[in-house]
């Protein structure tokens, strides 16, 4: 079989692992493709490279294709999210000034209770806290907004500002921001640089949040179904490999290379293992499902996830979404996912939507082979999001 080269853009983050591993561990080759991985300097650059045909596929923030379908942001080329690349994996952290005040007030940095963390923050703040996030359309922003609105911080209690992740630690030190929400390894980098401490994992706010997606141009998906299938299967196999505990050391070494993340494997391992060092004092915290690439049908692009994102974006940007959500949610291509992965030995859910936040314990669900369990996906406030109530 002739190997086809596919240019693919990614941001240097731990959750780009499925793409990097697909190429490095031979899963791409097994499908007769070779991924030309291009490290991008910014998310806007990833989006533009994809939209204007410089690359055929990209590692993208899950809300970006949804926002584009809603006409938010600069570019409106139709994009399809064909797989979820990673679930969870963000951290919320604070700079040293806030850390000191929190410690003085007795906060234990338990790295688990979002309600208590919010109360502690609300108590020590002197004005609205400024949070740095990597991009205006990101799960980071959505998690922060959801968390603030439902806690002592209050909906208007924080300001959100875009700061490129590699500059997050500097922005904390310079006082441009008080706190941040960022993907790994950048939270751990901030801790190791002595710029701050980690307060919560993203999954404490939403237990199973789609973080990054595998995105392609919708017209490319239509004209290149065979290549798309090969790409999706290679990436899915990589996710399965990554979910095995014995792969962790190798994965960390590969990701740490200069061409990829260019940070020490030890820092990358924290996200892969879910054992995080939350402060300069060396306090360790362990988090279940801190970052998930495979288990619980993690790769499945649930339309209900897209709908949740669309509804939150609509509320934040004053857009009327009633009657339009169904259409927007179709950028999460449950149909293509099922079509192309059925042959890869994956067990796929029978439905394309689920009630988000309703799963409290690992639950068996109807699936193609009958062996699929979904993992807990609760929101911290116990609310659920029923997609049939939002169309």
């Amino acid at each position, binding site marked *: 079989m002739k190997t086809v080269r596919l240019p693919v853009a990614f941001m240097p983050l731990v959750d780009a692992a499925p793409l990097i591993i697909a190429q490095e561990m031979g899963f791409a080759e097994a499908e007769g493709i070779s991924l030309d991985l291009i490290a991008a*300097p910014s998310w806007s650059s990833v989006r533009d490279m994809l939209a204007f045909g410089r690359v055929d596929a990209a590692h993208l923030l899950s809300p970006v294709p949804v926002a584009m379908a809603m006409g938010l942001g600069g570019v409106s080329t139709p994009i399809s999210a064909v797989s979820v690349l990673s679930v969870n994996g963000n951290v919320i952290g604070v700079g040293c000034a806030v850390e000191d005040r929190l410690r003085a007030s007795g906060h234990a940095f338990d790295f688990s209770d979002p309600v208590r963390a919010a109360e502690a923050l609300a108590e020590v703040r002197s004005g609205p806290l400024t949070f740095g996030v990597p991009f205006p359309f990101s799960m980071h922003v959505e998690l922060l907004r959801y968390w603030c609105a439902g806690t002592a911080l209050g909906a208007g209690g924080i300001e959100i500002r875009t700061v490129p992740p590699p*500059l997050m630690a500097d922005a904390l030190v310079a006082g441009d921001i008080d706190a941040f929400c960022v993907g790994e390894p950048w939270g751990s980098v901030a801790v190791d640089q002595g710029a701050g401490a980690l307060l919560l994992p993203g999954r404490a706010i939403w237990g199973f949040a789609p973080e990054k997606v595998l995105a392609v141009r919708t017209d490319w998906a239509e004209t290149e179904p065979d290549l798309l299938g090969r790409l999706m299967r290679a990436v899915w196999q990589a996710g399965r490999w990554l979910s095995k505990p014995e792969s962790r050391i190798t994965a960390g070494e590969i990701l740490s290379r200069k061409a990829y993340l260019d940070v020490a494997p030890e820092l990358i391992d924290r996200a892969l293992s879910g054992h995080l060092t939350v402060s300069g004092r060396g306090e360790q915290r362990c988090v279940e499902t801190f970052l998930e690439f495979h288990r619980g049908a993690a790769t499945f692009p649930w339309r209900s996830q897209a709908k949740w994102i669309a509804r939150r974006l609509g509320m934040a940007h004053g857009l009327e979404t009633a009657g339009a959500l169904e259409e927007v949610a179709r950028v999460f291509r449950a149909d293509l996912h099922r079509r192309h992965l059925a042959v890869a030995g994956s067990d796929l859910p029978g439905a394309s939507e689920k009630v988000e936040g309703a799963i409290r314990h690992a639950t068996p669900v109807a699936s193609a082979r009958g062996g699929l369990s979904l993992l807990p996906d609760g929101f911290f406030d116990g609310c659920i999001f029923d997609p049939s109530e939002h169309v």
Partner: protein
Amino acid sequence: MPAGAELVSRESRLPRSVARANRWSMGAKLTVVVVEEDRDRAIAIVDALKDTIDCDVIVIADASGLARKIAAHAPDIVLIDIDNPTRDMLEELTLASGPLERPVAMFVSGAAGGLAQAAIEAGVSAYVVDGLSPERIKPVMDTAIARFSMVRQMRTELAETRRALEERKVIDRAKGLLMKAKGIDEEAAYALLRKTAMDRGRRVADVAEALVTASGLLG
């Protein structure tokens, strides 16, 4: 202070969108913001723009609070290097309310199809205020594209030259080590390096580097 900025401040009591609409109808100069921290590069771009287009150019070098700083100048066009990671900060601008206040990536402003591709290839991204006519955008973009790609090329060449020089130094040291250890002349030392590189499928510079490192370790 650039004339464009002055005009905005005089009309500051009007909503900015009205001010801008007036400015265009009067055929006023374009205001272009260039985000670039390298001083020489910024000067090169400013000069090129001023030579071709009647416009006010403002350079912002420091990324801290970027979106706010840009908004304060109410530019018609914002130019930034595609490789600049602070570019994501500009995305906040695309969310500003009011149709005429909203800079959008040039790529959606209708006429820009091929221009967008060229801009991406050249490594420049532009945020253009919605509603600005394509005829006014094009010369700015053409100039920026040409200048950005020229500066980029010069940089790449400089980096290449530096690297080549570094490699030459390492190869010279490796040759010296071989000459001393094996009592051979310079030509034979180089031939040995080249043969080893070919046998191992590696570059001469890599083999030389390995030799220098190893000899350093062995003392």
